């Protein structure tokens, strides 16, 4: 009855909450909040920012130009070598210093001549020191982008659906200015140098680059549009009066008809895309997917640029109209800077404003003040570059980031005192224990007040952003006023703070879809504009009709009449299926002209296919338990019968096929493989002294250390996380027990197994004393040390509330792509291990006298397989081999990254393919080292019961306070019964088969 009462009580509270959602008092935090920026030490280290630097150095522009040949470095690390009249920074951190003779005092614009180097694919990061120190914080870490070009023509599947070409890097020499990586300073950065000798130092952060020279140029003087027009007039430049030129954003379909084409871009994921909603987006086609625009969410980060070439028939001034869609930033503007032939022709080109509208629009009045965009094109080939910029939001975004950072720091300091669940009636003496808290709060309050002022119009109306700031300010006011009850505003503070940081992320995300740019005579009307209602209606009808005629789910193969047909099923998204199909058409079919592959997109399970006798020939990605489950029923082909199987299995880590082995055969190839890594926040570790002798954050090596660290962090009201996934649907049981928690890993590290007999398992080992002990140790983390069972890793790691956690390695890409604000403040390490002991219980030491630690772990992933029903198992095997080969997997992974971004990185089981992706050298080494310690656990008939038994026992211990050993015994027995039943059931079948 008490329980029921508890639930009722909770419910009553809930109703109250629902009825008065606007009540100002505690509104609960949700775990799903998007939380953004913070870090312990804010980014502004000892050097001030650029704004301060400019103020501190009033002076004239330089009058001379200095070019420093990179090969003349006077001092350099071993990782930096002279090569081909330039300096090659390898993919490890390195440093080089030059002596520069400056002829005259003044401001110099800094630029670099460089080229990309093979290997690696992320942008090159460097830091610039002058006379041994960073001139301003923006110079500590800046980026020189790699340049990407389309490799070949647009790809097509057999139905004519188009897909962007593969991307390759352009290694030609580039010259790029020094820029603020955050985009808060829109202008190119300059340095102020006195006449005389200076040292210039470049630090590379581990991405390879070939540097040719460093330039100190005279900063360019840019006139306003009005003045520039006068200047052009004076020079006798005329207005263009011929036919309009169209530049298709995605590039031209036929260079013979339209020579204006896309030239390059700074990100591989900026590729042609398809929109079928509007006939005005040309080329439009109701029946097939045609590439017709560029951009989207992948063209949204500061300094991402696209360059086109425009062939002008005559020199002159052109007006430029844009056909675009900006429905990403609601009621706000996405900015682009426009450069023609590498320069801004007038000031206003620095920020073209693409305002929100839900649909496609055609507009040429994008300059500030609604002026028409004008450009001067010389006769012949010109380049036009659009670059993402924060535009008019730059300074404000900088302030927002600064405010958010400080609010975040303050939050963590407050939490360190009052904890996650403060007592409403206790006097925490917050303002005494953080002596400068009041001062800082007042300061923040004033600054935000000024920002609100800035965002409000003459009538005092404020926009969304200012409204958020105001909410935050109200909380601060209350905390300042009621200092002894300040802890009660903790959750309000957190809410406001997280919406502010979410807003900040949104503000910096300047997405835009661009269909085309039209360069026309200023006096004439545009011919190409957006489509009207009539056209859209007709197009809509056409699409509706098309929907009856098209089979969206099948991509047929390109094989001859006599080709062997193969069918594969995938349950992926359309984009992924298109990638797969284009890879098959482009590569597999070329190598195997005698096979014709049909890719079918379906939700049906293999089982349904087998039941209806309609199964595919092979499946490329099915859950981990499927191979054994189907194999014991005789539905799969034994892959080890193919003579080159042993060769193929070497593409994966040793033993990766263990879960797919059954009764002496191998019934699946690993297709993806995942494992756990440890993520930790270096800044917080350093703050709390979790460091090595050099003061560098040091991750725990053993579980004992892990717990030590945990207790220090928990003392300061932070938490640490272990992976735990609730069993909520069928799919999770099929992922195997290692995908759910680290219990199997802990067992492995002690040299134990989940099963009673390593070679011929007939049940679980749960009744054994050692297994019980490990289980108890595992549950102790939750019961004794009170680690959170459920928590949102991504958000809390970003804020720093969970500074140390073990998670699947895929989180690395997620964090590096989607949490830019903590860049450089976290690391990935191998998971903790268990010290190895000999029979007597004494620790085993290695040659150097260090303890040997076993940090092996159990992996998880998916498999591909060939079905027994297949009529062409030999051809299917060729397909599987082709698919799992390193080059195919790498191509697929890169294509998927182009579509989904880095956060959607594919975790191929092929070691060469995965480590070949762009991880950065150190991360890839750590990954590979841990990957080699992955020991896959076998799957056995009825194995799903093991996952369940562990889960049941776990929760009984946690919520019912049951004895871990009893629970292990009880649920182990239940699992054993099921496993025994299954084994016996299929033992007979096996005998029959053999006879």
């Amino acid at each position, binding site marked *: 009855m008490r*329980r*029921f009462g*508890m*639930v009722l*009580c*909770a*419910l009553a*509270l*809930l109703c109250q*909450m629902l009825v008065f959602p606007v009540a100002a008092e*505690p509104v*609960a*935090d*949700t*775990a*799903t909040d998007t939380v953004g920026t913070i870090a312990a030490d804010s980014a502004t280290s000892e050097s001030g920012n650029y704004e301060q630097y400019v103020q501190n150095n009033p002076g004239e522009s330089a009058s001379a130009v200095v070019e420093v040949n990179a090969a003349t470095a006077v001092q350099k690390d071993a990782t930096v070598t002279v090569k081909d009249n330039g300096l090659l920074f390898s993919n490890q951190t390195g440093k080089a210093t030059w002596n520069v003779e400056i002829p005259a005092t003044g401001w110099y614009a800094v630029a670099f001549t460089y080229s990309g180097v093979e290997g690696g694919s992320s942008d090159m990061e460097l830091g610039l020191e002058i006379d041994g120190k960073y001139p301003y914080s923006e110079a500590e870490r800046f980026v020189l982008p790699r340049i990407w070009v389309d490799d070949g023509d647009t790809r097509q599947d057999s139905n004519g659906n188009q897909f962007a070409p593969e991307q390759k890097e352009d290694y030609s020499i580039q010259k790029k200015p020094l820029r603020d990586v955050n985009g808060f300073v829109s202008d190119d950065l300059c340095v102020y140098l006195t006449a005389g000798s200076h040292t210039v130092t470049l630090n590379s952060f581990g991405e390879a680059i070939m540097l040719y020279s460093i330039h100190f140029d005279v900063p360019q003087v840019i006139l306003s549009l009005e003045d520039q027009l006068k200047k052009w007039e004076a020079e006798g430049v005329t207005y263009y009066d011929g036919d309009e030129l169209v530049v298709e954003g995605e590039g031209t379909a036929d260079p013979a008809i339209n020579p204006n084409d896309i030239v390059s871009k700074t990100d591989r994921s900026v590729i042609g895309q398809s929109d079928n909603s509007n006939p005005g987006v040309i080329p439009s086609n109701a029946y097939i997917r045609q590439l017709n625009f560029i951009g989207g969410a992948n063209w949204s980060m500061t300094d991402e640029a696209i360059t086109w070439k425009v062939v002008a028939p005559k020199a002159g001034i052109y007006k430029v109209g844009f056909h675009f869609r900006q429905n990403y930033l609601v009621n706000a503007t996405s900015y682009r800077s426009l450069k023609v032939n590498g320069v801004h022709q007038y000031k206003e080109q620095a920020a073209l404003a693409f305002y929100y509208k839900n649909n496609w629009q055609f507009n040429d009045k994008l300059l500030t003040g609604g002026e028409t965009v004008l450009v001067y094109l010389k006769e012949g080939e010109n380049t036009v570059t659009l670059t993402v910029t924060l535009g008019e939001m730059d300074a404000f975004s900088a302030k927002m980031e600064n405010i958010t950072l400080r609010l975040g720091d303050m939050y963590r300091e407050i939490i360190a005192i009052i904890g*996650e*669940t*403060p*007592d*409403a009636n206790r006097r925490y003496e917050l303002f005494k224990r953080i002596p400068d808290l009041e001062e800082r709060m007042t300061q923040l309050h004033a600054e935000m007040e000024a920002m609100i002022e800035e965002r409000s119009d003459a009538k005092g109306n404020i926009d969304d952003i200012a409204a958020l700031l105001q909410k935050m300010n109200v909380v601060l006011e209350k905390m300042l006023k009621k200092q002894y009850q300040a802890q009660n505003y903790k*959750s309000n503070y957190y809410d406001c703070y997280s919406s502010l940081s979410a807003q900040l992320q949104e503000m910096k995300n300047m997405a835009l879809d661009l269909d085309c740019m039209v360069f026309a005579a200023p006096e004439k009307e545009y011919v190409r504009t957006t489509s009207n209602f009539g056209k859209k209606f007709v197009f809509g009808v056409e699409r509706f009709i098309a929907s009856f005629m098209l089979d969206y789910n099948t991509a047929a193969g390109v094989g001859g009449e006599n080709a062997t047909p193969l069918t594969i099923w995938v349950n992926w998204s359309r984009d992924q299926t298109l990638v797969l199909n284009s890879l098959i058409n482009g590569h597999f079919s070329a190598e195997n002209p005698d096979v014709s592959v049909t890719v079918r997109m379906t939700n049906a399970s293999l*089982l349904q296919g*087998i*039941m209806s006798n309609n199964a595919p020939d092979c499946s490329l990605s099915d859950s981990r338990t499927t191979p054994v*489950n*189907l194999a014991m*029923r*005789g*539905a799969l082909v034994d892959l080890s019968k193919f003579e080159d199987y042993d060769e193929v299995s070497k593409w994966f880590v040793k033993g990766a096929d263990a879960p797919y082995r059954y009764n002496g055969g191998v019934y699946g190839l690993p297709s993806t493989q995942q494992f756990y890594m440890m993520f930790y926040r270096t800044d917080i570790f350093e703050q709390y002294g979790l460091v090595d002798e050099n003061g560098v954050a040091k991750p725990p090596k053993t579980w004992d250390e892990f717990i030590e660290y945990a207790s220090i962090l928990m003392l300061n009201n932070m938490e640490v996380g272990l992976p735990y996934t*609730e*069993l*909520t*649907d*069928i799919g*999770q*049981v*099929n992922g195997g027990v290692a995908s759910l928690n680290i219990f199997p890993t802990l067992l492995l590290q002690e040299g134990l197994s989940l099963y009673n007999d390593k070679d011929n398992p007939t049940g679980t080992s749960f009744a054994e004393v050692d297994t019980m002990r490990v289980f108890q140790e595992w549950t102790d983390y939750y019961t004794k040390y*009170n680690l*959170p*069972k*459920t*928590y*949102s890793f991504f958000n809390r790691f970003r804020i720093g509330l969970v500074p140390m956690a073990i998670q699947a390695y895929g989180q690395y890409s997620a964090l590096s792509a989607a949490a830019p604000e903590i860049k450089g403040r976290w690391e990935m390490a191998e998971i903790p291990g268990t010290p190895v002991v000999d029979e007597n219980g004494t620790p085993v030491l290695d040659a150097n006298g260090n303890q040997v630690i076993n940090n092996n772990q159990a992996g998880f992933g998916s498999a591909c397989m060939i079905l027994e029903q297949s009529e062409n198992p030999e051809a299917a095997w060729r397909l599987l081999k082709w698919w799992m080969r390193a080059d195919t997997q790498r191509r697929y992974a890169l294509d998927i990254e182009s579509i989904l971004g880095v956060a959607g990185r594919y975790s191929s089981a092929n070691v060469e393919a995965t480590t070949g992706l762009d991880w950065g050298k150190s991360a890839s080494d750590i990954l590979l080292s841990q990957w080699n310690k992955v020991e896959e656990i076998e799957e056995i008939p*009825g194995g*799903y019961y093991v996952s*369940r038994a562990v*889960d*049941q026992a776990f*929760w*009984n211990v*946690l*919520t*019912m306070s049951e004895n871990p050993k009893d629970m292990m015994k009880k649920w182990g027995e*239940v699992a054993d019964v*099921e496993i025994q039943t*299954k084994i016996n*059931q299929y033992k007979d*079948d096996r005998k029959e088969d053999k006879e």
Partner: protein
Amino acid sequence: MSTKVKSPLRKSKVSFNQDAINGPFIMLLMPFLILFLTFTIIPIGYSVVMSFFDYDVVNTPTFSGLSNYMKMFINDYEFPIAVGNTLKFALVTGPISFALAFLLAWMINEFGPKTRSLLSFLFYSPALVGNGYFIWQIMFSGDSYGYVNSLLLSMGIITDAIQWFRDPNYAFTIVMIVQLWMSMGISFLANIAGLNNVDEAMYEAGAIDGIRNRWAELWYITIPSMKSILLFSAVMQVQATFSISSVATTLTGFPSVNHSTETILTHITDVGTIRFDMGYASALSVFLFAMMMIVRLGLGRLLISKD
């Protein structure tokens, strides 16, 4: 109440050839009959047959006599738990939601047309949103930042986040509450329609005959005139409570801790799709089918026998 008038068609039936009429009638029924047979009758028959076989989906089924039923009653420790839970759901949630659906409909019916339609929309909305019960997942999230946990923590009622769905102490109750919240479905609408159809004249006659208050009116006039609707409503409720499955698995996990919210239906899903034991799954469905039939007949007797 209504006097039965003999239909003229029925009277003249004798003069026609029976088969000549049935032929076209059956043809007219065909489209429905075909669908009904393929998707309802044949599958039911098929699972009755399959329940006597061992069938692992891939291999040919082998006849195994009553072994599946033996297993059900003797060997399967989850089965009694599942039956118990299903009955608990049926006995608690069924009647409460049935009564609620009727009472709410009755009360709402008293309002003016505009308020009535607004209120019926509000009460019907949980059924409209389909998988809307996900919202409960957020509310009762086990994270200390989940709505309920966060609220209780900040009020000092609890000191540690409660794993609402993973704790057998709470899981069942919560699923029951969610089920109640969702149960204002078809039967609620049917009740409203039924109330509108009660003849006004009866109330007038009742008033003249000495009915003094609304309760008496409800008891003596409204309920008797709505008998068929009430039966329909009851059947729908029973069916809903017997087929609690996705709510339980989504919220409390699959399997739930200690099988605390395991129902016959989730057990069938488990046996069929995870353990691939279709024969046994069929036997379980036959049991569930039988159970529902018995309850349905009982309900019919309970509600109709007063006639």
